């Protein structure tokens, strides 16, 4: 407590490395985390306190207190305490289990091992024992234990790569680098142990992208920013080790600071239910007032004279006062009108559904051995009402695997497979892949199906060679050899990875690079090119070029980039080839492939030297440096000779297209948030059917601020009108069931409750035990069984017809209108339940002449009718009768009778004469023929109108679901769209992974399976998409990311000199620019 108080005052953090004693005095928290809410001692008080903040429980408590006042107590206390205890216990058990699992996961995390430098030695230590100021060692692919200041790493210049997926969901690697003063420490344990720098920095906060602090070491100060910090939750990648000093630990880490209290999420049904409960409560009050006034009048007119028999105490003779007391009595009697049990039922149904989600084999992803997991039970039924799906692109829509699929070289397409008849056939069909076994460097995962390309290469087609050479030369890939001597490419952009790998497999192997050279192996011979200039990629240029000198001394510019851009810069002689190539490009684009145009230019030695000089001048310039460089790039990248184009497939996850199609049919709008470039985003949109060619306009929203975006959206909306999908991705949920049952649950409750309203004067018609048990035992189980097990439409049909989903979205299944129908139905039923026995019992004697119109018999008759009516109602609403439904429906009727007979038995009366005054009643009443006739009539009268109403509704206004239900046998399974979805409800974020299901069946229905190939683009559009970041060219030419073991520069030619200190800042700056611009316009990308 004291500690937390101190923490709240913390304005500045001072940490000294390797000095626990020094840091001790600030009482910083250690690395232990607590996400659990309770422990054994605090569980009861805290949990009860939380529970009694809920309206429902307070209401119960209030009733309980009312019932303890003898003057107004109209029901005994157990009618309230039983449900209250039941609800509270159930919730407590649920909370306890949840917390138990939190304890478990906390323990698991706290007990992870990390290597900590203690007493000048690296020791294994549990995460929870890591303290602020400790120096810990991380190895590749390890989770970061705390927020660290990066000191040194295995990579040159103290660089390290981290993946921040857990923090921000981005899967691309980020670069962090240590201060140059500390990166020198390396892995030298003794030096690291002596490191005694003091970090003064900001207090713990939740800003993931900001950090400010100062490191004082050896008498000098170094400012620290976010680039030097590795946050807890990140994973170290591509870096064999690094050392860091713990700045924030445990709950102070940025990750934990962000995971604040999870907001309790309410579904729209919850909200609706709350509103309705409020209304019902208001209704109850009105009812109470009306009845109280009635009571006053009655007391005044009749009761006054009736006093002989009831001798009111003097003080109570006042009829107004009597009315006042009656008001409270009625509030108690009618308390079940407020459907508190509804909350419990809904809770249980949700729990049941979440188990079904967890158990569903069709939602099991065998690839990762992951079953679906409903992390929260509160939102299940909302799945049936999803209107928008927001999705990430990479990893969700796409596998983030790029594969080189096709290319067009000098007007000829390679990679298209033709069968015997000369027809284009499906790529995925079994066809012998081109064998690369002759090539020792071949990547086994690479598959290419067109043998013509290999033939062309063997025949020495110069254009083909030039094309592949370009692919091997013009890129930012880094190569390295692993311990086994295999060539490993470190790829910054997966597109380039695909291209370089393709070139490698086709015999043009990129071997190594230095800042000045690129070495490739051309069909077995090593060739070293001098890298003269690197014209880096950026979002405006949409192209990148390298200028190299081959061993023969020729200078060549190799360029790849967006077709639209490159085509403008071609030499006029390329016209024919351009037409041909652009046809090819548009064909590729139509297939959803990402394309790049490829071109080269032979450069004159003199011309290049002049140009290079100008470039150097421009670089040295202070004024308008960037513009001048830009201009020079423009100048040299012209009169290009077109070579062809590449087509890379950004591999979609299996089933994405089918899923997206189904989602569209289900009227679910999909939004994809992506940090990609516009072109890439559009490309993916087409690839996965979110955008189709029949959408006339794609509106591009490119605002950078919230205001701009809103404005643009508004404009787009005006233009749009009707066509409302902007951009999207596919994830689905069909939750066919829940909403339907919910209304039934409500309905039953309401029926039951309203039946209670109508009762004689100041008289509770029912046996008090009946009231207590009614909601809990007699009717809740069948409702629950229905809620949990019912399937109004079978899974096949619901898959086949995504349109079934629409009513849920429109809230057609449970809304206020429906609710009022339920209420009307309930009132009607209750009237029937009361007045039919009333009329029948009035002035009537039983078979043995005895009077049967005593209030106990009347109560038993009504209760029995009610239970049967409700069961019949549930039975009618249950369209899917499993054994469990049978057990519950019949079981609850059986239970009712057995409980009835037990409670009316001599034995129980003998033991508790005061509690069970209904002795013998069931036996006597239920043997009377006329009572059964009354019950029968009541059932017919209450059920028939409902059936008739439904019949007419189905006949006159059939819904799709009705048709499916009525006509399943005729239509049979219609189409085969097989989607398996994983529900991944985590912190309110639906992260759904899609799987295709039953490929065998898919094969059987090839007609239905939609393939990208079948979609032909009617319009020409560019398939350009390239995941590339600016700044890497600079990194390469500066050589900063190259290991020292690389051969030193051999060329005497001056290389482009940049301000050597600025490259990393440039890179970082550009990276953050991208990030921040992304965060600004993340609302809409298109």
């Amino acid at each position, binding site marked *: 407590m004291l500690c937390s108080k101190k923490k709240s005052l913390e304005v500045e953090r001072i940490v000294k490395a390797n000095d626990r004693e020094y840091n001790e005095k600030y009482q910083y928290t250690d690395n232990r985390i607590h996400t659990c809410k309770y422990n054994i001692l605090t569980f009861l008080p805290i949990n009860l306190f939380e529970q009694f903040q809920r309206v429902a429980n307070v209401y119960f408590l209030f009733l309980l207190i009312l019932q303890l006042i003898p003057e107004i107590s109209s029901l005994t206390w157990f009618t309230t305490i039983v449900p209250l205890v039941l609800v509270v216990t159930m919730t407590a058990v649920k909370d306890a289990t949840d917390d138990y699992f939190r304890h478990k996961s906390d323990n698991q995390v706290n007990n992870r091992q990390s290597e900590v430098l203690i007493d000048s030695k690296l020791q294994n230590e549990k995460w929870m024992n890591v303290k602020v100021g400790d120096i810990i060692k991380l190895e590749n692919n390890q989770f970061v234990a705390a927020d660290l200041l990066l000191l040194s790493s295995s990579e040159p210049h103290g660089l390290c790569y981290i993946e921040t997926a857990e923090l921000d969901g981005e899967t691309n690697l980020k670069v962090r680098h240590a201060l140059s003063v500390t990166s020198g420490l390396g892995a030298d344990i003794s030096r690291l142990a002596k490191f005694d720098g003091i970090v003064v920095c900001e207090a713990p906060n939740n800003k993931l992208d900001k950090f400010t602090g100062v490191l004082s070491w050896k008498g000098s100060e170094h400012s620290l920013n976010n680039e030097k910090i590795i946050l807890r939750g990140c994973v170290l990648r591509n870096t064999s080790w690094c050392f860091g000093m713990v700045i924030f630990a445990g709950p102070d880490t940025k990750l934990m600071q962000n995971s604040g209290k999870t907001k309790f999420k309410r579904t729209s049904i919850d909200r609706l239910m709350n509103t309705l409960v409020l209304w019902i409560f208001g209704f109850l009050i009105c009812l109470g007032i009306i009845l109280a006034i009635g009571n006053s009048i009655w007391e005044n007119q*009749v*009761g006054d004279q*009736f006093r*002989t*028999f*009831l001798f009111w105490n003097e003080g109570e003779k006042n009829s107004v006062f009597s009315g006042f007391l009656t008001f409270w009595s009625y509030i108690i009697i009618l308390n079940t009108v407020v459907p508190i049990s509804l909350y419990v039922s809904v809770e249980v149904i949700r729990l049941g559904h979440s188990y*079904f989600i*967890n*158990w*569903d*084999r069709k939602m*099991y992803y065998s690839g990762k*051995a*992951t*079953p679906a997991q409903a992390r929260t039970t509160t939102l299940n039924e909302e799945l049936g009402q999803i209107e928008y799906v927001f999705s990430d692109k990479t990893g969700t829509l796409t596998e983030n695997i790029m594969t080189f699929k096709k290319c067009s070289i000098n007007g000829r397409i390679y990679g298209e497979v033709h069968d015997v008849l000369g027809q284009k056939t499906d790529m995925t069909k079994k066809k012998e892949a081109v064998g690369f076994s002759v090539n020792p460097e071949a990547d086994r995962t690479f598959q290419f199906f067109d043998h013509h390309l290999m033939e062309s290469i063997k025949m020495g087609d110069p254009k083909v060679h030039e094309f592949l050479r370009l692919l091997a030369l013009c890129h930012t890939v880094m190569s390295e050899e692993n311990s086994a001597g295999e060539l490993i490419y470190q790829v910054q952009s997966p597109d380039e990875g695909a291209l370089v790998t393709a070139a490698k497999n086709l015999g043009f192997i990129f071997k190594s690079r230095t800042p000045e050279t690129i070495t490739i192996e051309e069909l077995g011979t090593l060739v070293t090119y001098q890298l003269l200039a690197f014209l880096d990629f950026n979002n405006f240029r949409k192209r990148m070029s390298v200028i190299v000198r081959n061993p023969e001394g020729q200078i060549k510019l190799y360029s790849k980039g967006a077709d639209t851009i490159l085509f403008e810069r071609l030499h006029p002689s390329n016209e024919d080839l351009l037409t041909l190539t652009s046809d090819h490009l548009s064909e590729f684009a139509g297939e959803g492939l990402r394309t790049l145009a490829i071109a080269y230019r032979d450069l004159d030695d003199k011309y290049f030297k002049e140009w290079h000089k100008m470039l150097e001048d421009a670089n040295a310039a202070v004024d308008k440096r960037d513009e001048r460089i830009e201009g020079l790039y423009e100048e040299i990248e012209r009169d290009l000779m077109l070579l062809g184009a590449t087509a890379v497939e950004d591999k979609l996850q299996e089933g994405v297209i089918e899923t997206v199609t189904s989602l569209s049919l289900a009227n679910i709008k999909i939004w994809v948030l992506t940090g990609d470039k516009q072109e890439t985003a559009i490309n993916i949109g087409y690839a996965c059917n979110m955008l189709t060619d029949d959408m006339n306009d794609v509106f591009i929203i490119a605002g950078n601020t919230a205001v701009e975006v809103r404005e643009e959206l508004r404009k787009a909306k005006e233009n749009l009108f009707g066509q409302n999908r902007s951009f999207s991705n596919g994830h689905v949920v069909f939750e066919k069931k829940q909403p339907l049952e919910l209304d039934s649950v409500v309905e039953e409750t309401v029926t039951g409750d309203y039946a209670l309203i109508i009762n004689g004067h*100041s008289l*509770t*018609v029912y046996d008090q035990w009946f009231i207590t048990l009614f909601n809990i035992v007699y009717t809740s189980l069948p409702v629950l069984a229905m809620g949990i*097990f019912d*399937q109004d439409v079978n899974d096949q049909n619901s898959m086949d017809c995504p349109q079934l989903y629409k009513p849920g979205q429109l809230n057609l299944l449970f809304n206020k209108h429906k609710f009022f129908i339920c209420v009307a139905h309930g009132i009607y039923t209750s009237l029937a339940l009361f007045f039919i026995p009333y009329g*029948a*019992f*009035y*002035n*009537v*004697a039983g078979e043995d*002449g*005895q*009077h*049967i*119109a005593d*209030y106990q*018999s*009347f109560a038993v008759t009504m209760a029995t009718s009610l239970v049967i009516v409700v069961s019949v109602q549930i039975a009618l609403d249950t*369209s*899917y*009768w*499993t054994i*469990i439904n049978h057990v519950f429906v019949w079981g609850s009727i059986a239970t009712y009778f057995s409980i009835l007979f037990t409670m009316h038995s*001599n034995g129980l009366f003998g033991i508790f004469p005061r509690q069970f*005054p209904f*002795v*013998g009643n069931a036996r*006597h009443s239920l043997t009377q*023929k*006329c009572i059964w*006739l*009354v019950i029968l*009539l009541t059932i*017919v009268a209450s059920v*028939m*109108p409902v*059936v*008739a109403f439904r*019949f*007419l509704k189905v*006949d006159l206004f059939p819904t799709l679901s009705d048709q499916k*239900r*009525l006509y*399943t046998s005729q239509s049979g399974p219609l189409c085969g769209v097989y989607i398996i979805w994983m529900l991944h409800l985590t912190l309110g974020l639906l992260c759904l992974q899609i799987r295709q299901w039953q490929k065998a069946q898919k094969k059987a229905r090839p007609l239905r399976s939609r393939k990208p190939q079948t979609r032909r683009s009617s319009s020409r559009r560019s398939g350009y998409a390239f995941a590339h970041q600016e700044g890497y060219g600079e990194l390469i030419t500066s050589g900063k990311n190259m290991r020292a073991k690389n051969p030193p520069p051999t060329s005497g030619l001056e290389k482009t000199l940049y301000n050597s200190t600025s490259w990393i800042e440039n890179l970082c700056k550009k990276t953050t620019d991208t990030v921040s611009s992304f965060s600004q316009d993340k609302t809409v990308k298109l």
Partner: protein
Amino acid sequence: MKRKSQDCPSRLPDNSAVKQQQLPAYRLQLSANKILSGFFATGVFCLGVGIILLLSAKTIKEVEINYTEKCANCAKLRENAANFDKECNCSIPFVLPETMKGNVYMYYKLYGFYQNLYRYILSRSNSQLVGTDVKDVRNCAPFKTSHNGIPIAPCGAIANSMFNDTIILSYNLNSSIHVKVPMIRSGITWWTDKYVKFQNPSFQNLSSAFAGTTKPPNWPKPAYELDEEDPGNNGFINDDFIVWMRTAAFPTFKKLYRRLHRIEHFTEGLPAGSYSFNITYNFPVNRFQGEKAVVLSTLTWSGGSSLFLGLAYMVTGAVTWLAFFSMLAVHLRLRERKMFFLQQ
């Protein structure tokens, strides 16, 4: 880590029917034909039952004689509580035009007596009435104890307000000979009431069992002296008392008083002729503007049914048929239209 990889295969959910929601199930499909024939059948059934009920209700003979006004003198006397110990008799002659065949039951009937008042209903002590604890008067407010604190037995408002008129039916064979119609007082209560719910305290002598208690204020005599003719019909197990204690659900109710003993002139039932009720008028109704009547009635197979149930069945049956026909019309009409569309 190792454990994790072992776990992997087992993470596939069980392939049981329950978990995969593939329990064998019957899909309830209410087709139009089923619903329509259901409605038709229900209509037939209701109308049938209704007709049977109405016909059998017609065979019931019932005579009701309201004697509130007819015994005005006595009523006036009872208005003054001070006259509670004065007897008042009243004779009401009437003519039975037809023979009442079979078992005939005699009821007393009260109008406007709210035996269903909430506080009234609760004002009794079941543990006292079952004889376990004569002095247990906990729930009996406002009739727990007398002024001097002695517990009342039987306590409570219900017992205190017990109907205590005596009704004797006599048959006028001719103008001079009046025969008292033989009546049975037993068998008018539920078996469970008589033998389970109501028990006298176990004592040799009933009056000593009630020692330490006092009679309800409205009662002229203590409970153990309710029936002077039959000593076995006293205390809590007195039939009339038990019948009264089974509180009525509505403010107008009739309670079984006596059954016809079918001997002598009455083996067939009550023959037509002139009768008279001789009533000892004790129970005051004028104070709450109530009325009281005596009812003679026969029964049928379904008891002393009124016309209501039969009529209700008829109405329900008729409405069901009406619904059936209109639904049929709608359905056929729509089907025609659908066919039309299909042909197009």
